[in-house]
């Protein structure tokens, strides 16, 4: 298995190759997709992309944490976190078992 890292550039290149758009338009569309997903999440909506996965928000309560290095107690304020649950299709494609 390789250790390659893809970025926005690679995603827009894929769109450029697939659809007859310019590189600039492809890049703008990638950014637009990510922006709309982020905005929906920020407004408190979960984002569910069929056959890809679901981004859901969870509210965490305040708790007392501990600095693992010093052992010192530090308060952790309540916060909202994002979790991603991959679709079965993604899990199957990534698992390295059975097909593919």
């Amino acid at each position, binding site marked *: 298995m*390789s250790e390659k890292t893809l970025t926005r550039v690679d*995603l827009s290149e894929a769109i450029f190759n697939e*659809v007859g758009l310019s590189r600039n338009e492809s890049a703008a569309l990638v950014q637009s997709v990510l922006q709309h997903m982020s905005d929906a999440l920020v407004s408190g909506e979960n984002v569910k992309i069929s056959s890809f996965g679901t981004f859901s928000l969870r509210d965490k309560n305040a708790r007392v944490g501990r600095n693992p290095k010093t052992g010192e107690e530090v308060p952790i304020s309540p916060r909202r*976190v994002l979790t991603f649950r991959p679709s079965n299709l*993604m899990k199957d494609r990534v698992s390295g078992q059975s097909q593919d």
Partner: protein
Amino acid sequence: MIRSELVQKIADENPQLFQRDVERIVNTLFEEIINALADGDRVELRGFGAFSVKQRDARIGRNPRSGESVEVEAKNVPFFKTGKLLRDRLNGKA
């Protein structure tokens, strides 16, 4: 928000594109991420987050119904880490 709503928003912003092209664009983007992960690659989208693959060792699992032991094969699982900008925005800090 679901996939079709995302497609609609992009289509509304880009009246020069056919809806079916917007669908292809959105499909391509998500497929490309899955393909990368299937190859064991990472996908890093600054400000949004990063998708990566984690390895899970083989283990002895248990059928919760029968209590029977079953061997679970080693496998790779997708993982997403939220980007700093998005994490801050979710908490009203940016």
